[in-house]
């Protein structure tokens, strides 16, 4: 029983981290029809910057702030430089963002080296506490709580705020939104930057749990793409449910059937794509 509770909490932790990454990916995908394959690299960039900032200042929150800011700026820079190509054909954006992912990956290897490293948890969360009869690190519990809080906050922003309505209007009908006086280009740039900075923030938040190492960028990217596909493109609810599902499937798969753990992860993806090609919460997006 303890084993299962422990794995359940592990799965939720992975799910929580995935949600922060995948929500940015799915909103950008839904809004601009861009599958940003450099999202994982932006995640890792945030992690590495956070690592260095923590090394020099010893402050975790400063590290998180710096990680989020760096990735956000990098995202903005990429979006501004390649706007035309990004909004063009599927092929071009896939190859472009993949190329950027390779460049960032190799650049980070050059700067931070190939050894896997780890961020330190902030002091007040370094203890373990006892929940449901198991002793579990409080930092991981904090991540789970944070994911639920962030999910709620994002939902309120998306569904209830005026700014959220502006973004949704751009998803549904870009031209009509522009005709109503909404600066669509501004919305695109800010959403892309916010998505990128959330990826960077997650790189830091995940640093004490997953560590930071070259290769993590593509691992996270793959899982995030899976989440977006399961949840449905552009759906925040889908990203939340998908993240928790993938987190749990991945954790239980690795713990119970290590030899076929990729099979247990990707077989459900294929099944969902075939039964519900638009994902659990997806809808047909206008071209």
């Amino acid at each position, binding site marked *: 029983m303890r084993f299962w509770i422990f794995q359940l909490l592990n799965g939720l932790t992975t799910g929580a981290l995935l949600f922060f990454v995948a929500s940015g990916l799915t909103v950008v995908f839904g809004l601009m*029809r861009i*599958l940003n394959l450099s999202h994982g690299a932006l995640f890792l960039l945030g992690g590495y910057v956070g690592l260095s900032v923590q090394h020099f200042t010893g402050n975790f929150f400063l590290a998180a702030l710096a990680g989020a800011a760096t990735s956000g700026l990098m995202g903005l820079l990429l979006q501004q430089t390649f706007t035309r190509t990004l909004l063009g054909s599927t092929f071009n954006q*896939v190859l*472009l963002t993949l*190329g950027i992912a390779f*460049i960032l990956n190799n650049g980070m290897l050059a700067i931070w080296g190939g050894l896997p490293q780890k961020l330190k948890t902030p002091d007040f969360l370094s203890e373990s506490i006892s929940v449901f009869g198991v002793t579990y690190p409080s930092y991981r519990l904090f991540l789970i709580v944070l994911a639920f809080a962030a999910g709620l906050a994002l939902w309120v922003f998306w569904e209830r705020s005026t700014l959220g309505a502006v973004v949704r209007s751009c998803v549904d009908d870009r031209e009509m939104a522009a005709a109503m006086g909404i600066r669509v280009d501004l919305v695109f740039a800010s959403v892309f930057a916010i998505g990128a900075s959330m990826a960077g923030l997650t790189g830091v938040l995940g640093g004490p749990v997953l560590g930071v190492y070259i290769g993590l960028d593509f691992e996270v990217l*793959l899982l995030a793409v899976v989440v977006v*596909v399961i949840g449905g493109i552009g759906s925040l609810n889908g990203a939340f449910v998908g993240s928790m599902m993938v987190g749990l499937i991945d954790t239980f798969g690795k713990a119970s059937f290590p030899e076929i753990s990729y099979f247990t992860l990707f077989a459900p993806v294929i099944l969902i*794509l075939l039964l519900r090609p638009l994902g659990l919460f997806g809808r047909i997006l206008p071209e």
Partner: protein
Amino acid sequence: MKRVLIVIAVGFLLAVLPFIVSGYWLGLITQAVILGGFAMGLDLLVGFARMPSIGHSTFFGLSGYGVALAVTRFDVAIWPAVGIGLLLSLIAALLFGPLAVRMRGLAFLTITLAFGQLTWGLTTRWSSFTNGENGIPGISRPSFLWDIETVVGYFYFTLLIAIAISIFIIIFAESPVGISLLGVRNSDTRMSALGYNIHSRRTIAFVVAAAVGAMYGILNVFYNKFIGPGSLSWQLSAQMLLSVVVGGPVSLWGPFLAGSGIVILKTMLIGTTQRWPMVLGLLYVVSVVFLPGGIASLLPKVRARFEKMFRGRVTE
């Protein structure tokens, strides 16, 4: 027909190489022909049918694993093992293809990625059977009309098969089926109204590209005498997709050139720098931004320039 003759002519030109270049270069060119040919086959799917697969290395690697596992685990003789390898890839393609072709654009990309990761995961994690990350070494080459154990012998073997496959690809591309793929790409609603079964056309493109990949996968496993999960990684699939786009979709020769060029560039750079992924990344970015039509799109421009040069101003 013209293009078949060009393939044969190029084949004869390449056949001179063993007299000119060193054994090191000949080995490298053999690898380049293998991956270039794979890219040429993928052009049928990515260029002709415009379906961006990021999972076709699955079939390249799976046939290799089929051979390796049949030989090492089940003591099958080599030539029958080749048949098993090809069959394994073909079954996988017939299983994945009809499901994947129901998706479009990025959804197709993600489902091919999912299929690819699924098989890749089996080869890396199922280590009691596939030997995991370490791969399977010690696969010996089959006996053939001439000795293919030597670098030169294997080069001619690869060249012969590559010419045969290329001729098949060209005949397929110029056949009514190949031409109908272009129709499906340009307007599937119109083709559907004309009575074509869109899904079956797409499946044909998927399976033919997979079959070509599987055959080159066999050449690859015998070249290296080794198979590892790297040969069905998504990175290799992405490199093949890049080759098609950089080479110029639908031209067939462009993807071949780009696919083999990348192999040679990679080998040359890996010896001197650790920045190969960055160079590859830059290649992705630069080619997409500055050369959207691929290398093949340069040919008409160059030709026009030459004609202008030779004709001078008289004809203007």
